[in-house]
Protein backbone atom coordinates (compact mmCIF):
# COMPACT_ATOMS: atom_id res chain seq x y z
CA UNK A 1 0.00 0.00 0.00
CA UNK A 2 1.35 3.40 -0.92
CA UNK A 3 1.15 5.46 2.26
CA UNK A 4 4.49 7.22 2.77
CA UNK A 5 5.72 10.03 0.52
CA UNK A 6 8.52 7.86 -0.81
CA UNK A 7 6.14 4.99 -1.61
CA UNK A 8 3.67 7.37 -3.28
CA UNK A 9 6.44 8.70 -5.54
CA UNK A 10 7.61 5.17 -6.26
CA UNK A 11 4.11 4.06 -7.31
CA UNK A 12 3.66 7.20 -9.42
CA UNK A 13 6.95 6.47 -11.20
CA UNK A 14 5.88 2.88 -11.87
CA UNK A 15 2.60 4.10 -13.35
CA UNK A 16 4.54 6.70 -15.32
CA UNK A 17 6.75 3.99 -16.85
CA UNK A 18 3.62 2.12 -17.92
CA UNK A 19 2.37 5.20 -19.81
CA UNK A 20 4.86 4.83 -22.67
CA UNK A 21 4.64 3.03 -25.99
CA UNK A 22 7.84 2.77 -28.04
CA UNK A 23 9.53 5.42 -25.93
CA UNK A 24 6.83 8.05 -26.27
CA UNK A 25 3.95 9.03 -24.07
CA UNK A 26 0.71 7.34 -25.15
CA UNK A 27 -2.73 8.79 -24.45
CA UNK A 28 -4.24 5.30 -24.48
CA UNK A 29 -1.78 4.03 -21.91
CA UNK A 30 -2.42 7.03 -19.67
CA UNK A 31 -6.18 6.40 -19.93
CA UNK A 32 -5.51 2.75 -19.04
CA UNK A 33 -3.47 3.74 -15.98
CA UNK A 34 -6.25 6.07 -14.84
CA UNK A 35 -8.88 3.36 -15.31
CA UNK A 36 -6.72 0.94 -13.29
CA UNK A 37 -6.37 3.49 -10.50
CA UNK A 38 -10.11 4.00 -10.42
CA UNK A 39 -10.73 0.28 -10.04
CA UNK A 40 -7.86 -0.46 -7.65
CA UNK A 41 -7.56 2.72 -5.64
CA UNK A 42 -4.30 2.83 -3.63
CA UNK A 43 -4.02 4.41 -0.18
CA UNK A 44 -3.98 8.21 -0.61
CA UNK A 45 -5.13 8.07 -4.26
CA UNK A 46 -5.10 11.87 -4.55
CA UNK A 47 -1.41 12.08 -3.64
CA UNK A 48 -0.58 9.33 -6.14
CA UNK A 49 -2.53 11.09 -8.89
CA UNK A 50 -0.82 14.43 -8.15
CA UNK A 51 2.62 12.81 -8.28
CA UNK A 52 1.63 10.96 -11.48
CA UNK A 53 0.34 14.18 -13.06
CA UNK A 54 3.58 15.99 -12.23
CA UNK A 55 5.63 13.37 -14.06
CA UNK A 56 3.27 13.36 -17.07
CA UNK A 57 3.26 17.19 -17.26
CA UNK A 58 7.09 17.29 -17.14
CA UNK A 59 7.30 14.62 -19.85
CA UNK A 60 4.67 16.28 -22.06
CA UNK A 61 6.52 19.60 -21.76
CA UNK A 62 9.54 17.95 -23.41
CA UNK A 63 7.56 17.53 -26.65
CA UNK A 64 6.04 21.00 -26.81
CA UNK A 65 8.09 24.11 -27.53
CA UNK A 66 6.25 27.07 -26.01
CA UNK A 67 7.24 30.13 -28.05
CA UNK A 68 6.70 33.34 -26.10
CA UNK A 69 6.85 36.38 -28.38
CA UNK A 70 6.56 40.14 -27.99
CA UNK A 71 5.72 41.02 -31.61
CA UNK A 72 4.00 39.06 -34.36
CA UNK A 73 5.50 35.68 -35.28
CA UNK A 74 4.95 34.11 -38.68
CA UNK A 75 3.94 30.49 -39.27
CA UNK A 76 7.23 29.93 -41.10
CA UNK A 77 9.21 30.98 -38.00
CA UNK A 78 7.20 28.63 -35.80
CA UNK A 79 7.74 25.78 -38.26
CA UNK A 80 11.47 26.55 -38.37
CA UNK A 81 11.59 26.43 -34.55
CA UNK A 82 9.67 23.13 -34.51
CA UNK A 83 12.01 21.48 -36.98
CA UNK A 84 15.13 22.85 -35.23
CA UNK A 85 13.90 21.54 -31.87
CA UNK A 86 12.91 18.18 -33.36
CA UNK A 87 16.41 17.84 -34.76
CA UNK A 88 18.07 18.98 -31.57
CA UNK A 89 16.12 16.77 -29.15
CA UNK A 90 15.68 13.88 -31.60
CA UNK A 91 11.96 13.52 -30.88
CA UNK A 92 8.88 15.06 -32.50
CA UNK A 93 8.36 18.54 -31.09
CA UNK A 94 5.23 20.62 -31.66
CA UNK A 95 5.07 24.39 -31.25
CA UNK A 96 2.68 26.47 -29.21
CA UNK A 97 2.80 30.28 -29.58
CA UNK A 98 2.10 32.49 -26.57
CA UNK A 99 2.15 36.30 -26.74
CA UNK A 100 4.18 37.95 -23.96
CA UNK A 101 4.52 41.72 -24.13
CA UNK A 102 6.85 41.72 -21.10
CA UNK A 103 9.63 40.41 -23.38
CA UNK A 104 9.70 43.87 -25.09
CA UNK A 105 11.09 42.34 -28.32
CA UNK A 106 12.28 38.97 -29.56
CA UNK A 107 11.43 35.41 -28.55
CA UNK A 108 11.72 32.99 -25.67
CA UNK A 109 11.35 29.29 -26.39
CA UNK A 110 10.65 26.94 -23.50
CA UNK A 111 10.89 23.18 -23.99
CA UNK A 112 10.95 20.96 -20.92
CA UNK A 113 13.54 22.41 -18.50
CA UNK A 114 15.36 24.29 -21.24
CA UNK A 115 14.76 27.94 -22.06
CA UNK A 116 16.21 29.58 -25.17
CA UNK A 117 16.33 33.27 -24.45
CA UNK A 118 16.49 35.67 -27.36
CA UNK A 119 14.38 38.52 -26.05
CA UNK A 120 15.23 42.12 -25.25
CA UNK A 121 13.99 41.67 -21.67
CA UNK A 122 16.27 38.67 -21.19
CA UNK A 123 19.29 40.53 -22.51
CA UNK A 124 18.57 43.52 -20.31
CA UNK A 125 18.29 41.22 -17.30
CA UNK A 126 21.63 39.59 -18.18
CA UNK A 127 23.20 43.02 -18.61
CA UNK A 128 21.93 44.30 -15.27
CA UNK A 129 23.16 41.12 -13.56
CA UNK A 130 26.64 41.56 -15.01
CA UNK A 131 26.99 45.20 -13.91
Amino acid at each position, binding site marked *: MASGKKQINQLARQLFKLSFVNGSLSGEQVAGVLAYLEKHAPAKPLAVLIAYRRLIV*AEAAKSVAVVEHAGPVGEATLQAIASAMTARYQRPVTVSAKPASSLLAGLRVRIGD*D*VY*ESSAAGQLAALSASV
Partner: protein
Amino acid sequence: MSTVIEQIEQQIAKLSTKAVRKNTGVIRTVADGVAKIDGLSDVMYNEMVQFPGGVIGIALNLETDEVGCVVLGDVSNLKEGDEVQTTGKLLSVPVGKALLGRVVDALGNPVDGKGPLGATETYPVERIAPGIMARKSVNQPLFTGIMAIDSMIPIGRGQRELIIGDRGTGKTTIAVDTIINQAKINRVGLASGNPKFRPVYSIYVAIGQKNANIVRTIGALEAAGALEFTVIVGAPAADNAANQYIAPYSGAAIGEWFMENGMDALIVYDDLSKHAVAYRQISLILKRPSGREAYPGDVFYLHSRLLERAARLDGKGSLTALPIIETLAGDVSAYIPTNVISITDGQIFLETDLFNQGIRPAVSVGLSVSRVGSSAQIKATKQVGGKLKGELAQFRELAAFAQFGSDLDAKTKAQLDRGGRIVELFKQPAFSPIPIEQQVVTLWAIQKGYYDGLDLKKVNAASVSIRDFFATRKDELLTEIRNKAALDKDLEAKIEAAMNEWKPTFAA
Protein backbone atom coordinates in the same frame (compact mmCIF):
# COMPACT_ATOMS: atom_id res chain seq x y z
CA MET B 1 36.58 54.60 -39.75
CA SER B 2 33.48 53.26 -41.50
CA THR B 3 34.91 49.69 -41.52
CA VAL B 4 35.45 49.85 -37.77
CA ILE B 5 31.84 50.94 -37.25
CA GLU B 6 30.69 48.16 -39.57
CA GLN B 7 32.66 45.64 -37.52
CA ILE B 8 31.04 46.87 -34.30
CA GLU B 9 27.60 46.73 -35.90
CA GLN B 10 28.26 43.19 -37.09
CA GLN B 11 29.25 42.26 -33.56
CA ILE B 12 26.06 43.86 -32.19
CA ALA B 13 24.00 42.04 -34.81
CA LYS B 14 25.62 38.74 -33.83
CA LEU B 15 24.95 39.35 -30.16
CA SER B 16 21.40 40.52 -30.57
CA THR B 17 20.32 37.38 -32.45
CA LYS B 18 22.17 34.91 -30.30
CA ALA B 19 19.82 32.78 -28.25
CA VAL B 20 21.09 31.82 -24.81
CA ARG B 21 20.17 28.36 -23.55
CA LYS B 22 19.33 28.07 -19.89
CA ASN B 23 18.32 25.01 -17.95
CA THR B 24 15.56 25.88 -15.51
CA GLY B 25 13.50 24.46 -12.72
CA VAL B 26 10.67 25.51 -10.48
CA ILE B 27 10.74 25.76 -6.68
CA ARG B 28 8.51 23.13 -5.13
CA THR B 29 9.20 23.88 -1.47
CA VAL B 30 11.45 26.19 0.54
CA ALA B 31 12.14 25.43 4.18
CA ASP B 32 14.94 26.34 6.59
CA GLY B 33 17.29 27.57 3.90
CA VAL B 34 16.82 24.53 1.67
CA ALA B 35 14.80 24.58 -1.57
CA LYS B 36 13.41 21.50 -3.33
CA ILE B 37 13.25 22.14 -7.06
CA ASP B 38 11.44 20.42 -9.92
CA GLY B 39 13.32 20.35 -13.21
CA LEU B 40 16.98 21.48 -13.44
CA SER B 41 17.63 18.30 -15.43
CA ASP B 42 21.14 19.44 -16.44
CA VAL B 43 22.33 20.61 -13.02
CA MET B 44 25.62 19.21 -11.73
CA TYR B 45 26.55 18.33 -8.18
CA ASN B 46 27.75 21.40 -6.26
CA GLU B 47 26.78 23.68 -9.14
CA MET B 48 25.70 27.22 -8.36
CA VAL B 49 22.04 27.91 -9.22
CA GLN B 50 20.37 31.28 -9.61
CA PHE B 51 17.17 32.08 -7.72
CA PRO B 52 15.05 35.17 -8.44
CA GLY B 53 16.27 38.42 -6.88
CA GLY B 54 19.97 37.62 -7.30
CA VAL B 55 19.94 34.94 -4.57
CA ILE B 56 22.21 32.00 -5.27
CA GLY B 57 22.18 28.43 -4.09
CA ILE B 58 24.16 25.20 -4.42
CA ALA B 59 22.75 21.93 -5.71
CA LEU B 60 23.58 19.33 -3.07
CA ASN B 61 21.04 16.56 -3.65
CA LEU B 62 20.38 15.30 -7.17
CA GLU B 63 17.41 12.96 -6.89
CA THR B 64 15.22 11.16 -9.45
CA ASP B 65 12.55 13.82 -9.69
CA GLU B 66 13.81 16.77 -7.65
CA VAL B 67 16.94 18.71 -6.78
CA GLY B 68 17.79 19.79 -3.22
CA CYS B 69 19.59 23.15 -3.02
CA VAL B 70 20.92 25.12 -0.09
CA VAL B 71 20.06 28.80 -0.45
CA LEU B 72 22.95 31.17 0.29
CA GLY B 73 21.06 34.31 1.07
CA ASP B 74 17.69 35.68 2.00
CA VAL B 75 15.00 33.05 1.48
CA SER B 76 12.16 35.31 2.59
CA ASN B 77 11.40 36.47 -0.97
CA LEU B 78 11.42 33.01 -2.53
CA LYS B 79 8.14 31.23 -3.08
CA GLU B 80 6.71 28.10 -4.61
CA GLY B 81 6.64 28.29 -8.40
CA ASP B 82 9.62 30.68 -8.75
CA GLU B 83 11.97 29.89 -11.61
CA VAL B 84 15.51 28.72 -10.84
CA GLN B 85 18.33 28.58 -13.40
CA THR B 86 21.55 26.62 -13.61
CA THR B 87 24.71 28.70 -14.08
CA GLY B 88 27.21 26.09 -15.21
CA LYS B 89 29.62 27.42 -12.58
CA LEU B 90 30.95 26.26 -9.25
CA LEU B 91 30.60 28.66 -6.34
CA SER B 92 33.64 30.98 -6.29
CA VAL B 93 34.90 33.69 -3.97
CA PRO B 94 37.20 36.65 -4.62
CA VAL B 95 40.81 36.06 -3.59
CA GLY B 96 44.03 38.03 -3.42
CA LYS B 97 45.84 40.61 -1.35
CA ALA B 98 42.97 43.05 -1.84
CA LEU B 99 41.10 41.09 0.84
CA LEU B 100 43.68 41.79 3.54
CA GLY B 101 42.27 44.01 6.24
CA ARG B 102 38.72 43.27 5.13
CA VAL B 103 35.74 41.47 6.63
CA VAL B 104 33.76 39.38 4.15
CA ASP B 105 30.78 37.03 4.36
CA ALA B 106 30.76 33.38 3.34
CA LEU B 107 30.39 34.37 -0.34
CA GLY B 108 33.25 36.87 -0.25
CA ASN B 109 31.04 39.96 -0.21
CA PRO B 110 32.46 42.78 1.93
CA VAL B 111 30.47 43.43 5.11
CA ASP B 112 32.73 46.01 6.76
CA GLY B 113 31.37 49.06 4.96
CA LYS B 114 34.78 49.87 3.44
CA GLY B 115 33.53 49.66 -0.14
CA PRO B 116 34.21 47.15 -2.91
CA LEU B 117 37.08 44.70 -2.48
CA GLY B 118 38.80 45.39 -5.78
CA ALA B 119 39.84 41.74 -6.13
CA THR B 120 40.49 40.64 -9.70
CA GLU B 121 40.67 36.88 -9.22
CA THR B 122 38.25 34.29 -7.93
CA TYR B 123 38.85 30.74 -6.68
CA PRO B 124 36.25 27.95 -6.46
CA VAL B 125 35.09 27.36 -2.92
CA GLU B 126 35.32 23.57 -3.28
CA ARG B 127 38.68 22.37 -4.53
CA ILE B 128 40.45 19.07 -4.43
CA ALA B 129 43.31 19.09 -1.89
CA PRO B 130 46.88 19.02 -3.23
CA GLY B 131 48.09 15.49 -4.06
CA ILE B 132 50.99 13.53 -2.66
CA MET B 133 53.64 14.63 -5.14
CA ALA B 134 52.89 18.33 -4.80
CA ARG B 135 53.50 18.31 -1.05
CA LYS B 136 56.64 18.90 0.92
CA SER B 137 57.24 17.93 4.54
CA VAL B 138 56.77 20.56 7.23
CA ASN B 139 60.11 22.03 8.30
CA GLN B 140 59.60 25.76 8.68
CA PRO B 141 58.35 27.06 12.03
CA LEU B 142 55.20 29.07 12.56
CA PHE B 143 55.58 30.83 15.89
CA THR B 144 52.43 31.34 17.93
CA GLY B 145 54.12 33.70 20.37
CA ILE B 146 52.80 31.54 23.21
CA MET B 147 55.74 30.15 25.12
CA ALA B 148 54.01 26.94 26.26
CA ILE B 149 53.15 26.09 22.65
CA ASP B 150 56.30 27.20 20.83
CA SER B 151 58.53 25.31 23.27
CA MET B 152 56.51 22.14 23.85
CA ILE B 153 53.98 21.76 21.02
CA PRO B 154 55.65 23.57 18.11
CA ILE B 155 53.73 24.23 14.92
CA GLY B 156 55.20 24.22 11.43
CA ARG B 157 54.08 25.95 8.25
CA GLY B 158 51.63 23.69 6.43
CA GLN B 159 50.63 21.81 9.59
CA ARG B 160 47.06 21.24 10.85
CA GLU B 161 47.02 21.72 14.62
CA LEU B 162 43.72 21.37 16.43
CA ILE B 163 42.86 23.66 19.34
CA ILE B 164 40.39 21.79 21.51
CA GLY B 165 38.74 22.45 24.84
CA ASP B 166 35.54 23.29 26.68
CA ARG B 167 33.80 26.63 26.28
CA GLY B 168 35.60 29.55 27.86
CA THR B 169 39.04 27.94 28.09
CA GLY B 170 40.80 30.36 25.76
CA LYS B 171 40.70 28.56 22.39
CA THR B 172 39.98 31.67 20.33
CA THR B 173 42.56 33.63 22.35
CA ILE B 174 45.30 31.20 21.30
CA ALA B 175 44.27 31.53 17.66
CA VAL B 176 44.08 35.34 17.83
CA ASP B 177 47.44 35.48 19.65
CA THR B 178 48.95 33.46 16.80
CA ILE B 179 47.51 35.85 14.21
CA ILE B 180 48.83 38.86 16.16
CA ASN B 181 52.24 37.24 16.41
CA GLN B 182 52.36 36.69 12.63
CA ALA B 183 51.62 40.38 12.12
CA LYS B 184 54.43 41.34 14.53
CA ILE B 185 56.89 39.02 12.81
CA ASN B 186 55.77 40.30 9.39
CA ARG B 187 56.36 43.88 10.40
CA VAL B 188 59.88 43.16 11.73
CA GLY B 189 60.72 40.93 8.76
CA LEU B 190 59.49 43.35 6.12
CA ALA B 191 61.30 46.25 7.80
CA SER B 192 64.56 44.25 7.86
CA GLY B 193 64.57 44.12 4.05
CA ASN B 194 65.69 40.48 4.12
CA PRO B 195 64.79 39.09 0.66
CA LYS B 196 64.40 35.57 2.10
CA PHE B 197 61.78 36.68 4.62
CA ARG B 198 58.38 35.07 4.00
CA PRO B 199 55.45 36.86 5.66
CA VAL B 200 52.49 34.86 6.92
CA TYR B 201 49.03 36.19 6.05
CA SER B 202 46.14 35.12 8.23
CA ILE B 203 42.52 34.19 7.58
CA TYR B 204 40.12 34.00 10.50
CA VAL B 205 36.88 32.14 9.73
CA ALA B 206 34.13 32.68 12.29
CA ILE B 207 31.44 29.99 12.04
CA GLY B 208 28.26 30.23 14.07
CA GLN B 209 29.79 32.79 16.44
CA LYS B 210 27.92 35.57 18.16
CA ASN B 211 28.32 38.83 16.28
CA ALA B 212 29.56 40.48 19.47
CA ASN B 213 32.40 37.94 19.71
CA ILE B 214 33.41 38.54 16.09
CA VAL B 215 33.45 42.29 16.73
CA ARG B 216 35.64 41.70 19.81
CA THR B 217 38.07 39.58 17.80
CA ILE B 218 38.26 42.19 15.04
CA GLY B 219 38.82 44.85 17.71
CA ALA B 220 41.67 42.84 19.26
CA LEU B 221 43.30 42.35 15.86
CA GLU B 222 42.88 46.00 14.97
CA ALA B 223 44.29 47.16 18.32
CA ALA B 224 47.33 44.96 17.80
CA GLY B 225 47.81 46.22 14.24
CA ALA B 226 47.22 42.72 12.86
CA LEU B 227 44.13 43.40 10.78
CA GLU B 228 46.13 44.64 7.80
CA PHE B 229 47.64 41.14 7.42
CA THR B 230 44.34 39.35 8.07
CA VAL B 231 41.15 38.45 6.21
CA ILE B 232 38.05 37.83 8.32
CA VAL B 233 35.39 35.52 6.91
CA GLY B 234 32.25 35.76 8.98
CA ALA B 235 29.26 33.43 9.06
CA PRO B 236 27.76 34.39 12.42
CA ALA B 237 25.07 32.53 14.33
CA ALA B 238 22.43 34.75 12.72
CA ASP B 239 23.44 33.55 9.24
CA ASN B 240 21.60 30.61 7.75
CA ALA B 241 23.07 27.13 8.05
CA ALA B 242 24.10 27.11 4.38
CA ASN B 243 26.38 30.11 4.84
CA GLN B 244 27.86 28.59 7.99
CA TYR B 245 28.47 25.38 6.04
CA ILE B 246 30.21 27.13 3.14
CA ALA B 247 32.28 29.69 5.14
CA PRO B 248 35.31 27.49 6.00
CA TYR B 249 35.61 26.39 2.37
CA SER B 250 35.52 30.04 1.28
CA GLY B 251 38.27 30.80 3.81
CA ALA B 252 40.30 27.85 2.54
CA ALA B 253 39.97 29.17 -1.05
CA ILE B 254 41.25 32.60 0.08
CA GLY B 255 44.17 30.89 1.86
CA GLU B 256 44.92 28.69 -1.13
CA TRP B 257 45.51 31.76 -3.27
CA PHE B 258 48.39 32.77 -1.00
CA MET B 259 49.73 29.21 -1.01
CA GLU B 260 49.49 28.80 -4.78
CA ASN B 261 51.23 32.13 -5.33
CA GLY B 262 54.30 31.24 -3.30
CA MET B 263 53.23 32.87 -0.03
CA ASP B 264 52.54 31.46 3.42
CA ALA B 265 49.14 31.72 5.07
CA LEU B 266 47.52 30.71 8.33
CA ILE B 267 43.84 29.87 8.58
CA VAL B 268 41.80 29.60 11.77
CA TYR B 269 38.44 27.78 11.67
CA ASP B 270 36.51 28.99 14.71
CA ASP B 271 34.88 26.55 15.20
CA LEU B 272 34.33 23.25 13.40
CA SER B 273 31.88 21.92 16.02
CA LYS B 274 29.38 24.57 14.95
CA HIS B 275 30.26 23.84 11.32
CA ALA B 276 29.33 20.18 11.84
CA VAL B 277 26.08 21.25 13.50
CA ALA B 278 25.22 23.51 10.53
CA TYR B 279 25.94 20.65 8.13
CA ARG B 280 23.81 18.28 10.23
CA GLN B 281 20.93 20.74 10.00
CA ILE B 282 21.21 20.96 6.21
CA SER B 283 21.54 17.19 5.87
CA LEU B 284 18.49 16.50 8.01
CA ILE B 285 16.39 18.97 6.00
CA LEU B 286 17.67 17.36 2.79
CA LYS B 287 16.52 14.03 4.28
CA ARG B 288 19.93 12.43 4.07
CA PRO B 289 20.30 9.32 6.23
CA SER B 290 21.59 10.24 9.68
CA GLY B 291 24.05 8.26 11.77
CA ARG B 292 25.72 8.74 15.15
CA GLU B 293 24.47 11.84 17.04
CA ALA B 294 22.22 12.44 13.98
CA TYR B 295 25.24 13.57 11.91
CA PRO B 296 25.17 12.39 8.29
CA GLY B 297 27.49 9.63 7.14
CA ASP B 298 29.87 11.99 5.35
CA VAL B 299 30.60 14.26 8.34
CA PHE B 300 34.16 12.89 8.47
CA TYR B 301 34.67 13.75 4.80
CA LEU B 302 33.20 17.19 5.50
CA HIS B 303 36.22 18.03 7.67
CA SER B 304 38.87 15.82 6.07
CA ARG B 305 38.44 17.43 2.65
CA LEU B 306 38.63 20.86 4.28
CA LEU B 307 41.72 20.21 6.41
CA GLU B 308 43.56 18.33 3.66
CA ARG B 309 43.65 21.61 1.76
CA ALA B 310 46.20 22.87 4.27
CA ALA B 311 49.64 21.88 3.05
CA ARG B 312 53.16 22.95 2.30
CA LEU B 313 53.65 22.78 -1.44
CA ASP B 314 56.88 22.02 -3.20
CA GLY B 315 58.13 25.16 -4.89
CA LYS B 316 55.14 27.19 -3.73
CA GLY B 317 53.84 28.43 -0.39
CA SER B 318 52.03 26.89 2.53
CA LEU B 319 48.68 26.96 4.29
CA THR B 320 48.69 26.21 8.01
CA ALA B 321 45.35 25.37 9.60
CA LEU B 322 44.30 25.87 13.20
CA PRO B 323 40.85 24.32 13.48
CA ILE B 324 39.03 24.81 16.77
CA ILE B 325 36.72 22.25 18.37
CA GLU B 326 34.58 22.84 21.42
CA THR B 327 34.15 19.87 23.74
CA LEU B 328 31.48 19.23 26.34
CA ALA B 329 32.79 18.55 29.87
CA GLY B 330 36.26 17.85 28.45
CA ASP B 331 35.04 14.83 26.46
CA VAL B 332 37.54 14.41 23.65
CA SER B 333 36.08 11.02 22.77
CA ALA B 334 32.87 12.50 21.31
CA TYR B 335 32.14 12.00 17.61
CA ILE B 336 33.33 15.27 16.02
CA PRO B 337 36.41 15.76 18.31
CA THR B 338 37.74 12.26 17.56
CA ASN B 339 37.14 12.78 13.84
CA VAL B 340 39.08 16.03 13.75
CA ILE B 341 41.82 14.72 16.08
CA SER B 342 42.42 11.88 13.63
CA ILE B 343 42.63 14.25 10.66
CA THR B 344 44.96 16.84 12.18
CA ASP B 345 48.70 16.65 12.88
CA GLY B 346 48.29 17.16 16.61
CA GLN B 347 46.20 19.00 19.14
CA ILE B 348 46.46 21.66 21.81
CA PHE B 349 44.13 20.57 24.58
CA LEU B 350 42.90 23.25 26.96
CA GLU B 351 41.66 22.23 30.42
CA THR B 352 38.92 23.99 32.34
CA ASP B 353 40.56 23.12 35.71
CA LEU B 354 43.86 24.72 34.71
CA PHE B 355 42.01 27.76 33.41
CA ASN B 356 40.12 28.14 36.69
CA GLN B 357 43.36 27.78 38.66
CA GLY B 358 44.66 30.82 36.79
CA ILE B 359 47.06 28.84 34.61
CA ARG B 360 46.50 30.61 31.29
CA PRO B 361 46.92 29.55 28.54
CA ALA B 362 45.38 26.42 30.07
CA VAL B 363 47.38 23.99 27.91
CA SER B 364 47.26 20.40 29.13
CA VAL B 365 50.77 19.14 28.51
CA GLY B 366 49.81 15.47 28.79
CA LEU B 367 47.04 15.54 26.20
CA SER B 368 48.61 18.03 23.79
CA VAL B 369 50.89 16.90 21.02
CA SER B 370 52.38 18.13 17.79
CA ARG B 371 53.10 15.28 15.39
CA VAL B 372 55.19 17.07 12.81
CA GLY B 373 56.07 20.39 14.40
CA SER B 374 59.26 19.30 16.18
CA SER B 375 61.08 19.11 12.85
CA ALA B 376 60.08 22.74 12.30
CA GLN B 377 61.28 23.94 15.72
CA ILE B 378 64.38 26.13 15.67
CA LYS B 379 67.51 24.74 17.30
CA ALA B 380 67.66 27.46 19.95
CA THR B 381 64.21 26.50 21.33
CA LYS B 382 65.16 22.84 21.27
CA GLN B 383 68.34 23.64 23.20
CA VAL B 384 66.58 25.56 25.96
CA GLY B 385 63.16 23.87 26.06
CA GLY B 386 63.79 20.32 24.89
CA LYS B 387 63.25 18.76 28.31
CA LEU B 388 60.45 21.05 29.51
CA LYS B 389 57.54 18.88 28.38
CA GLY B 390 58.89 15.84 30.24
CA GLU B 391 59.65 17.87 33.35
CA LEU B 392 56.20 19.43 33.36
CA ALA B 393 54.46 16.08 32.85
CA GLN B 394 56.50 14.61 35.70
CA PHE B 395 55.58 17.58 37.88
CA ARG B 396 51.83 17.08 37.28
CA GLU B 397 52.17 13.40 38.23
CA LEU B 398 54.18 14.15 41.36
CA ALA B 399 51.89 17.02 42.34
CA ALA B 400 48.93 14.63 42.28
CA PHE B 401 50.77 12.20 44.59
CA ALA B 402 52.13 14.95 46.85
CA GLN B 403 48.57 15.88 47.81
CA PHE B 404 48.29 12.67 49.86
CA GLY B 405 51.54 12.76 51.82
CA SER B 406 53.69 15.33 53.51
CA ASP B 407 56.96 13.37 53.75
CA LEU B 408 58.73 13.95 50.50
CA ASP B 409 62.36 13.28 49.72
CA ALA B 410 64.64 16.10 48.67
CA LYS B 411 64.66 15.03 45.00
CA THR B 412 60.87 15.02 44.76
CA LYS B 413 60.69 18.37 46.51
CA ALA B 414 63.19 19.80 44.02
CA GLN B 415 61.19 18.42 41.09
CA LEU B 416 57.96 19.90 42.49
CA ASP B 417 59.65 23.23 43.04
CA ARG B 418 61.03 23.34 39.52
CA GLY B 419 57.71 22.27 38.00
CA GLY B 420 55.91 25.02 39.89
CA ARG B 421 58.34 27.55 38.48
CA ILE B 422 57.86 26.26 34.93
CA VAL B 423 54.07 26.54 35.35
CA GLU B 424 54.45 30.12 36.56
CA LEU B 425 56.80 30.92 33.70
CA PHE B 426 54.33 29.74 31.09
CA LYS B 427 51.53 32.00 32.35
CA GLN B 428 50.95 34.59 29.69
CA PRO B 429 48.26 37.26 29.33
CA ALA B 430 45.92 37.25 26.32
CA PHE B 431 46.88 39.08 23.12
CA SER B 432 50.53 39.49 24.18
CA PRO B 433 52.56 37.08 22.11
CA ILE B 434 56.25 36.86 22.96
CA PRO B 435 58.84 36.96 20.15
CA ILE B 436 60.77 33.71 19.82
CA GLU B 437 64.15 35.28 20.73
CA GLN B 438 62.67 36.56 24.00
CA GLN B 439 61.22 33.11 24.64
CA VAL B 440 64.68 31.62 24.18
CA VAL B 441 66.18 34.01 26.74
CA THR B 442 63.35 33.36 29.22
CA LEU B 443 63.72 29.60 28.93
CA TRP B 444 67.52 29.78 29.00
CA ALA B 445 67.20 31.54 32.36
CA ILE B 446 65.16 28.70 33.87
CA GLN B 447 67.61 26.10 32.55
CA LYS B 448 70.42 27.96 34.27
CA GLY B 449 68.50 28.34 37.53
CA TYR B 450 68.01 32.11 37.50
CA TYR B 451 64.51 31.79 38.99
CA ASP B 452 65.49 29.21 41.63
CA GLY B 453 66.02 31.62 44.50
CA LEU B 454 62.85 33.57 43.85
CA ASP B 455 59.51 33.39 45.56
CA LEU B 456 57.13 31.34 43.36
CA LYS B 457 54.75 34.27 42.94
CA LYS B 458 57.56 36.43 41.55
CA VAL B 459 58.76 34.02 38.86
CA ASN B 460 56.43 35.39 36.23
CA ALA B 461 57.29 38.99 37.13
CA ALA B 462 60.98 38.08 36.85
CA SER B 463 60.49 36.60 33.40
CA VAL B 464 58.64 39.74 32.27
CA SER B 465 61.46 41.83 33.71
CA ILE B 466 64.07 39.78 31.82
CA ARG B 467 62.19 40.23 28.55
CA ASP B 468 61.80 43.97 29.14
CA PHE B 469 65.48 44.25 29.98
CA PHE B 470 66.55 42.44 26.83
CA ALA B 471 64.02 44.30 24.62
CA THR B 472 65.13 47.72 25.83
CA ARG B 473 68.83 47.21 26.44
CA LYS B 474 69.98 44.13 24.56
CA ASP B 475 68.19 44.47 21.27
CA GLU B 476 71.29 43.55 19.25
CA LEU B 477 71.65 40.33 21.19
CA LEU B 478 68.00 39.45 20.54
CA THR B 479 68.50 40.14 16.83
CA GLU B 480 71.55 37.87 16.86
CA ILE B 481 69.55 35.06 18.51
CA ARG B 482 66.76 35.55 15.96
CA ASN B 483 69.14 35.44 13.01
CA LYS B 484 71.32 32.56 14.21
CA ALA B 485 68.32 30.55 15.52
CA ALA B 486 70.77 28.43 17.54
CA LEU B 487 72.80 28.98 20.68
CA ASP B 488 76.57 28.57 20.46
CA LYS B 489 79.09 29.08 23.26
CA ASP B 490 79.70 32.68 22.28
CA LEU B 491 76.00 33.53 22.28
CA GLU B 492 75.42 31.77 25.59
CA ALA B 493 78.25 33.75 27.13
CA LYS B 494 76.67 36.97 25.92
CA ILE B 495 73.28 35.94 27.35
CA GLU B 496 74.94 35.04 30.65
CA ALA B 497 76.66 38.41 30.82
CA ALA B 498 73.38 40.18 30.07
CA MET B 499 71.56 38.11 32.71
CA ASN B 500 74.17 39.03 35.30
CA GLU B 501 73.61 42.63 34.32
CA TRP B 502 69.85 42.17 34.75
CA LYS B 503 69.97 40.40 38.12
CA PRO B 504 70.68 43.47 40.30
CA THR B 505 67.92 45.43 38.50
CA PHE B 506 65.20 43.02 39.64
CA ALA B 507 64.06 43.48 43.20
CA ALA B 508 63.18 39.98 44.44
